[in-house]
């Protein structure tokens, strides 16, 4: 058994793993019930799929340029996929995504509501806020009416 055969066996194994997990991630995105569960499938499966394919490239080609770039791709996948899914989940929760019917509890919503209640109880001046038609903007500088009212 020559070294080329061993390399080919390894790269066949890793390529099959990568292809399988990539496809499973896509199926999970179609099948799972709500956006949080879909994010599970998206982040984990694409990371492991890209890892497997990059390892197949390393074992088949074997030049130092390919090895370095493939390792960089793996590192980037390990960092970028979880960060992207975290940002998406945070944004979806902020946007009020309706969770699945069978979700048992949501402590993030509880804590947000408790904090909102506490801040309005601590600061009674906040009672003026609901009378305004729109919630307060983050930076008054970009809103011309807010700047005028601040000046007046």
């Amino acid at each position, binding site marked *: 058994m020559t070294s080329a055969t061993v390399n080919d066996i390894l790269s066949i194994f890793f390529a099959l793993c990568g292809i399988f997990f990539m496809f499973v991630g896509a199926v*999970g995105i179609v099948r*799972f019930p709500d956006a949080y569960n879909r994010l599970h499938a998206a982040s984990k499966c694409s990371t492991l799929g890209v890892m497997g394919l990059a390892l197949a490239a390393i074992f088949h080609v074997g030049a130092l340029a390919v090895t370095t770039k493939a390792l960089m791709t793996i590192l980037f996948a390990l960092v970028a996929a979880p960060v992207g899914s975290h940002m998406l989940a945070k944004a979806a929760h902020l946007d009020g995504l309706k969770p699945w019917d069978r979700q048992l509890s949501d402590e993030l*919503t509880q804590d947000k509501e408790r904090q909102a209640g506490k801040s309005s109880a601590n600061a009674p001046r906040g009672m003026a806020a609901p009378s305004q038609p729109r919630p307060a903007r983050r930076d008054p500088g970009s809103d011309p009416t807010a700047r005028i009212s601040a000046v007046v």
Partner: protein
Amino acid sequence: MMRPFLLNLLLTIVYVFLTADTSTPNVLMGFGIGFLVISLAGLTTPGPSYPGKVWRLLRFGVYFVKILVQANLKIAWECITPGLSQTPRIIRHDVSDLTDGQLTVLANSITLTPGTLVVDVSDDHKWLYVHCMYAQERAAAVADLRALHERLRKEVFE
């Protein structure tokens, strides 16, 4: 942990440039020489030694790949079998003993472990909100998170 390792990589690059040979054995040779130099230099300073740190990091890497494969097999099993068996929950997890960089590492590894996904961090960086896929009992899910947290703190952060 990070600084001696970056120094090791720098020594490797210097060795490769000095010998002008980019074959894989030569790069590994440069890495080994840098490893030896840093280990010997670390003998004079107190604190945990460099080879011990690298060994613990390697052990964590093997464990991490194992749980990453486990997570993917779980999702594959959920996709193949008909019907949905998830019992999701969003639970909070106490991270007030970590710095911001350690919190990032912990959040990334929580997202890549089976059945958990980080949703949000509280504004004062004390609580992590984690979406668990299989959390019929809350206590079991919290214990899993706590075990990963302890393992990461012992083997990577010291």
